[in-house]
């Protein structure tokens, strides 16, 4: 996955610069490698929650297969000569996993992600068009010598490219290593009394390294596709497109910017992993429209758009087939066997959450092994919507947890939590739970672990979102084998 990200998305950032021969491939690759790594390690904790909500791949074998399926799809489509979206293929692959394991896909999360793609495309087209209109009179009226202008554009391409690579690393690293965070085998590395590299940072570094390998092995070809075959850009328009891309990636990736907007009471932009491919194509279309729209090659644009629909579908298909092969031929566990019990405890909880339990009569006292079975039972009731059924399923899900404070400390995951939160975790050390919500409730005795029930302000929504991410880390870190389930 890291490899395909390096090969595909770096092409999107530096393709135009390398193909207009303003930057040599080696230089571009070096800058990309350095800044993607920096972005990944220092701001990598960015937007990973949305993907997690779509479907949480809960076994290492499954995570590997999903990543492999996405990487294969990207390679396949890139070979045809069309830049493809990394985010789209990973979403497709996760849906493939959902289909294989009988889990339900959360449509509202899917819509959030899909709309962010459209938003990123439109936003980058608008930013590129505005930038183009700003730059045009400056360049046309500038009295700088052509050679000096060339030199300035080169430096600007390096700076903006580095910024873009940093944002890309921050935005997309979570897609690469996010699923491996709770199972990370890395221990903290103490270099000196002051410098410690946490296990988490080591994991991000490993992800970044795989991206670097992708950059050096395959991205040159992708750069050629992006920079030459699809749309011919001049160095100045390449700079405009790259700037728009870097800005959009940064907007969607930076928690820092998010916090600034939040603290100054301005509306925030959701932190979601966007596709650098859609962003760069959007930027180029924006420039094309700003130039009057005559020079856009609509047939190629059509081909790209078609690939955007084909990519997730293909990824889902490949993911499904691979999961079947990995599970049955290699006998690897691709998902945790999960049970859903509608016993007294979970029914009470469901009722507490405000659901009318009379509609649960058909499932009361029963145990299910797939989400789809419950969905079929409950959807027959007609009184429950899909989202409500998904919420009910989450409450009935058995997810055996045992709080392991030492594991948190050993893997460096404690860095994500505040002192008060750590104190609460230490207090409940060694306790075991059957449901996720039981752990939530136990943790919520510490104020910082409490959700805002009716989050109205952006600040409260942000708190909930961060908390959700932290709890997801805990669910995975504390997961233990459900001994009572049948093999």
């Amino acid at each position, binding site marked *: 996955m890291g490899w395909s990200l390096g090969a595909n998305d770096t092409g999107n950032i530096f393709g135009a610069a390398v193909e207009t021969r303003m930057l040599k491939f080696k230089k571009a690759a070096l800058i990309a490698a350095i800044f993607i790594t920096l972005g990944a390690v220092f701001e990598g904790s960015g937007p990973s929650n949305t993907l997690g909500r779509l479907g949480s791949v809960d076994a290492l074998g499954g995570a590997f297969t999903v990543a492999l399926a996405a990487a294969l799809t990207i390679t396949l489509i890139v070979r045809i000569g069309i830049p493809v979206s990394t985010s789209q293929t990973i979403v497709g692959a996760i849906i493939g996993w959902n289909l294989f394991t009988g889990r339900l896909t959360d449509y509202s999360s899917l819509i959030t992600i899909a709309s962010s793609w459209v938003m990123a495309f439109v936003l980058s087209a608008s930013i590129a068009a505005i930038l183009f209109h700003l730059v045009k009179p400056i360049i046309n009226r500038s009295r700088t010598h052509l050679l*000096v202008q060339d030199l300035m554009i080169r430096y600007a391409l390096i700076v903006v490219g580095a910024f873009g690579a940093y944002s890309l690393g921050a935005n997309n690293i979570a897609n690469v290593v996010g699923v491996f965070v709770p199972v990370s085998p890395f221990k903290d590395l103490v270099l000196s009394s002051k410098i410690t590299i946490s296990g988490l940072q080591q994991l991000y570094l490993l992800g970044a390294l795989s991206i670097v390998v992708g950059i050096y092995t395959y991205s040159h070809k992708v750069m050629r596709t992006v920079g030459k075959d699809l749309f011919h850009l001049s160095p100045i328009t390449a700079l405009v497109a790259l700037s728009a891309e870097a800005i959009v990636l940064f907007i969607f990736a930076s928690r820092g910017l998010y916090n600034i907007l939040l603290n100054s009471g301005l509306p925030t932009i959701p932190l979601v992993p966007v596709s650098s491919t859609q962003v760069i194509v959007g930027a180029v279309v924006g420039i094309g429209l700003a130039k009057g729209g005559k020079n856009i090659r609509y047939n190629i644009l059509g081909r790209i758009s078609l690939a955007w629909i084909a990519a997730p579908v293909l990824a889902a298909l490949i993911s499904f087939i691979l999961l079947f092969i990995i599970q049955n031929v290699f006998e690897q566990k691709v998902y945790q066997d999960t049970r859903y019990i509608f016993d007294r405890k979970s029914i009470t909880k469901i009722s507490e959450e405000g659901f009318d339990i009379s509609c649960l009569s058909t499932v009361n006292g029963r145990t299910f092994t797939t989400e789809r079975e419950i969905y079929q039972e409950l959807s027959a009731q007609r009184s429950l919507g899909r989202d409500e059924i998904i919420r009910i399923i989450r409450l009935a899900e058995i997810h055996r947890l045992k709080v392991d404070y030492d594991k948190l400390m050993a893997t460096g995951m404690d860095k994500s939590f505040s002192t008060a939160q750590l104190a609460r975790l230490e207090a409940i050390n060694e306790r075991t739970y059957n449901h996720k919500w039981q752990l939530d409730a136990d943790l919520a005795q510490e104020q910082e672990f409490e959700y805002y029930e009716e989050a109205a302000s952006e600040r409260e929504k942000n708190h909930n979102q961060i908390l959700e991410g932290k709890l997801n880390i805990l669910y995975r870190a504390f997961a233990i084998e459900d001994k009572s389930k049948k093999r």
Partner: protein
Amino acid sequence: MTKNSLGIYCNIDEIVIEGEIMALLLKTTRFVESQIDTFLDIVSDSATTFQLAVEDYLEGRTQQFEERLTQICDYEHRADDLRVSIERFLYERTLIPENRGDVLAILENTDEVIDNIKDSLLQFSIELPHIPSELNDLWMQTTRASVAAVEQLVYAVRSFFRDLSAVNNYIHKVYFFEREADHIGERLRRQIFGMEIELSRKSQLRFFAIHIEKISDAAQNVCDRLSIYTIKRQL
């Protein structure tokens, strides 16, 4: 053989090596920029020298005319060397990758203007045509129009590098002076063939008149390309 910056005669490779050393000392960009400027200075100087040389010839100052011819030959060599050096720098250091083909075409075509100037004067020196004094005025007018076209061309090329918005003004001027040179040249040729002299002399004088007109034609050729490259460079 060409004089280098220290005034020592050397060949083109030595000039390029000297350029490499200079480029290490100065910034490459600034160095190539100054080379292009020097090249254009030479074109401008050649045009002015050409006008003075024609004047000298018409006034019978043969010695001075020959000195100016030598000067123009020197200019032509230096322009060639500079052009080669600029070419090497642009390609070896991948400078202005998007425009270097255009820039080289402009430099090569501008170089042809100097070649035309040199050829014309050289032909005077070889054939020593006798020009009747009543033709002097029209002869000088044609020469001045051609030289003006070359000077405007130099402005146009400089603007192409520094001030894109001004290029078209200068191109317009080049076209104007080219038409002017054609117009006066035609009158000159009509006057030549209206004179009571031998047909062989008429034919020889016509050849020289056309040669002077050709200088402005060469300037116009550069402008034809320049106007397209300017559109290409505009956003």
